[in-house]
């Protein structure tokens, strides 16, 4: 009997507690902070700017660390950040930045020119992975607390843009150079609109509004980033209102979201593209097919591929139909290819080109041979195993090539293997893609002769094994040209040259597919204007302007407290029932003995 009373007591106590918790829950919802919740398919890799490299990390840094100059939401133009104004020296090598008045870190410490000089100089000396490309030629000097002078040892067309994350010296200077990259950087001290409050690895991280933000305290109290491992589960959470924003909407869900009430689905381009690359065998290692060193064959291949059809059928039009190299998130750097140089889809013309150049099918097997009749045009075609689009692209491209008499042998690799295959030069063609920065210089530099891999121990970025003196000359010129219009012209020449050389057949520019609820928050800013994404952009301006819609409520408080109470109560009752049953059967047994 004792046991039964015990289990009944437990059940009653549990029920009481559950009911109380329900009351507490409801009360709490009224005072809850304004929370904006973002769902994404990636966990942050590191909050440390010297270690992280994933998109999610850049988004957190965009929120936490202000930069000396900011980028406009509409067109990436350089606008004041921590610096209010700046002056240029006559030789264009030195810029003097004047900071805003009374800048403070989120922990209340003053933010001075010293923090800026320390970040720039230390990142240069220690070669921080996300800073060094910008700071390698710079020397920063704090003139006084609110003035910093930055001198470049070479002409640098990127200046006065100074878009490197400035970290708080008072937190970071104690980290030794050797283990600075293993610092977890969970201090949450920054100068941007939001700073890190907490992190649950694999689940979520929360950024709270920075009360000391120089642009004024944001109108959203906190931004929660929630990690999903399943795209469809993430979309379901947006529909049910558990989250307000989805980054990387699975393509099959994109069109259905467009028809949902209170949800907007956008596809935002930032210059990222996919390409069919061909092994040019110009200076690098390997055994690429000799036919691909003939520009006529490359032109024929470009004309055999129906890019508009790929765009519609592979990425369902969720991107930009553009077949030039994407060198920047800013479309100003992308030229219009002159009509007479365009290599549009025309299989008959492709066949004619190959015929005229002597690539004929001499043995009647449907595959052309080299002009000397020896090697057939059978190309090794490599693709990525972890790309959702690779199978569809392969089916279409190999079919189109077959139609003009070119054979393919397909191999599938993961990213690490494919990088290795490309470095060794043992391939003929592959499909992959790139995402450029805002400044076109890095993307352009990847196709210079210097970046051709000549030693597998030191792999360059030039994955097409392609090298051109003319291109290199133009590269050096744009790299030193301080007049922006002249530089745009030089870059246009380079991209046009790269297009006509056809070492890459750019298939399309892909896009970030995103979706958000329109009934809770407003103030969205796409970067660049109209065509870019709303979050996860180059400088993520939306967080500064986002504000709740009156009466819209914030995400996450949709959990049905009453139902939880009922369900838990039901569970407790079942358990109590089992307990009673067990006690009774034991009692019966005891009675019999």
């Amino acid at each position: 009997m004792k046991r039964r009373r015990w289990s009944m007591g437990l059940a009653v106590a549990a029920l009481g507690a559950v009911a109380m918790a329900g009351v507490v829950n409801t009360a709490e919802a009224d005072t809850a902070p304004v929370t904006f919740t973002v769902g994404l398919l990636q966990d942050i890799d590191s909050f440390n700017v010297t270690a992280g490299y994933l998109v999610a990390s850049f988004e957190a840094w965009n929120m936490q660390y202000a930069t000396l100059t900011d980028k406009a939401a509409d067109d990436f133009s350089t606008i004041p950040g921590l610096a209010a104004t700046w002056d240029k020296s006559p030789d264009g090598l030195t810029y003097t930045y004047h900071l805003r008045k009374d800048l403070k870190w989120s922990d209340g410490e003053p933010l001075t020119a010293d923090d800026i000089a320390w970040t720039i100089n230390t990142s240069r000396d220690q070669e921080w992975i996300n800073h060094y490309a910008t700071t390698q030629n710079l020397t920063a000097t704090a003139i006084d607390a609110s003035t910093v002078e930055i001198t470049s040892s070479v002409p640098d067309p990127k200046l006065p843009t100074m878009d490197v994350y400035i970290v708080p010296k008072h937190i970071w200077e104690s980290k030794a150079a050797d283990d600075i990259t293993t610092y977890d950087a969970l201090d949450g001290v920054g100068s941007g609109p939001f700073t890190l409050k907490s992190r649950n690895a694999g689940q979520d991280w929360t950024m709270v509004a920075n009360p000391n933000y120089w642009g004024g305290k944001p109108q959203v109290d906190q931004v929660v980033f929630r990690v999903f491992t399943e795209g469809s589960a993430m979309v379901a959470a947006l529909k049910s209102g558990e989250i307000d924003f989805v980054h990387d909407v699975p393509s099959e869900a994109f069109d259905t979201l467009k028809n949902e009430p209170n949800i907007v689905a956008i596809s935002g381009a930032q210059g990222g593209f996919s390409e069919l690359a061909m092994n040019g065998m110009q200076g690098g290692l390997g055994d690429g097919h000799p036919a691909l060193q003939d520009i006529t064959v490359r032109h024929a291949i470009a004309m055999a591929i129906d890019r508009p059809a790929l765009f519609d059928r592979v990425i369902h039009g969720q991107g930009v139909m553009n077949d030039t190299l994407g060198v920047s998130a800013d479309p100003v750097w992308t030229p219009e290819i002159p009509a007479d140089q365009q290599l549009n889809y025309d299989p008959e013309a492709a066949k004619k080109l190959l015929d005229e150049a002597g690539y004929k099918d001499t043995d009647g097997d449907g595959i052309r041979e080299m002009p000397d009749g020896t090697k057939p045009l059978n190309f090794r075609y490599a693709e990525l195993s972890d790309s959702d689009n690779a199978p569809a692209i392969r089916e279409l491209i190999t079919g189109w090539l077959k139609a003009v008499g070119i054979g393919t042998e397909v191999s599938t690799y993961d990213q690490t293997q494919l990088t290795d295959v490309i470095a060794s030069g043992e391939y003929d063609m592959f499909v992959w893609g790139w995402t450029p920065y805002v400044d076109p210089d890095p993307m352009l530099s990847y196709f210079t002769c210097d970046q051709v891999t000549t030693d597998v121990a030191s792999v360059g970025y030039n994955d097409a094994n392609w090298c051109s003196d003319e291109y290199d000359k133009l590269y050096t010129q744009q790299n030193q040209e301080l007049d922006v219009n002249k530089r745009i012209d030089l870059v246009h020449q380079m991209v046009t040259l790269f297009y006509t050389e056809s070492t890459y057949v750019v298939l399309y520019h892909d896009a970030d597919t995103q979706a958000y609820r329109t009934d809770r928050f407003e103030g969205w800013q796409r970067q660049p204007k109209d065509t870019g994404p709303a979050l996860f952009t180059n400088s993520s301006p939306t967080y500064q302007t986002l504000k709740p819609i009156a009466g819209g409520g914030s995400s996450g408080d949709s959990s049905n407290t009453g139902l939880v109470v009922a369900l838990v109560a039901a569970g407790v009752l079942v358990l109590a029932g089992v307990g009673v049953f067990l006690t009774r059967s034991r009692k019966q047994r005891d009675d019999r003995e």
Partner: protein
Amino acid sequence: MRPRFVIGKLLGALSTIAFVVVFDFFLFRVVNGDPINSMFRGRNLTPAQLDRLRVKFNLDGSKWEQFVAYVRQLLHGDLGYSLKSSRPVATVISEAIWPTLLLVGTATLLAMIGIMIGYRAGWRRGSKFDAGATSMSMLTYSMPEFWIGMVALGVFAAGLGWFPVGGLNKPGSTETGFSRLLDQLHHMALPALVLGVAYIGEYMIVARSAMIDTSREDYLQLARAKGLRDAEVRKRHAQPNALLPVVSLSAINFGFVLSGAIAVESIFSWPGIGQQTQFAISGPDFPMLQGLFLLISAAVIVANLAADLLYGYLDPRVAGR
């Protein structure tokens, strides 16, 4: 139990773990390729910067040198740094273990109902109860976990909105104490039920067949002849003897607890070992994969060792042989 039996089993387990250490290391390196080159593709880094990253992640030097460094680290209890997060592998794993233990442990407890059902069904073989229970178990046993998960998510979370779509807690919540616990239970209910349903069939079927085997034994006839009631014969004479296969199934399953339920953790974004494995595979994050595989293999080996020793204790004939 004889000491020789125990020592033999222990040595066997230790040498298996040693084999796993070596095997895992080379397994992930069979395919050539430098993860640093692919991870930092398009990041505009200089060759010197890339070299420094290789040193940081113990990817410089020959495979043999890397192996020696790995074993030396391991002996110091250091599993290295994750390529992706730059965090110590041991820290990442120790954070992910608890959610997995909680989820799979709860599901296993739920699945214990299957043992009770199995005993009853096996005892009354051919009855309506048996037919119903067996076909239900076959049905749930044959349904893939991810499929049950997707359906449950679609109906109860996304559709009816009774449960959250995933995660361990409401993100960004400031709740503490009991209301936090309640929130956690709310989040766990659906994945634990899905896993429980998936496990229940297995337990039921094993318990049922063990009971059927036992029910043919002569000593049960004797018990009935003594005039004991049917329920007494089942509880006191049949069930204890039908326990052995169930014990070994539970022990082996317990080993697999740590490998998590990759499919279910992935559908419900549950921050456990299964989710970490999924993240690491998509890297590939060698140090994380090595750490995870070592942990999972060690858990299975230890669970098997425990099952062997328990078996020896429950059935002295095993240890004596």
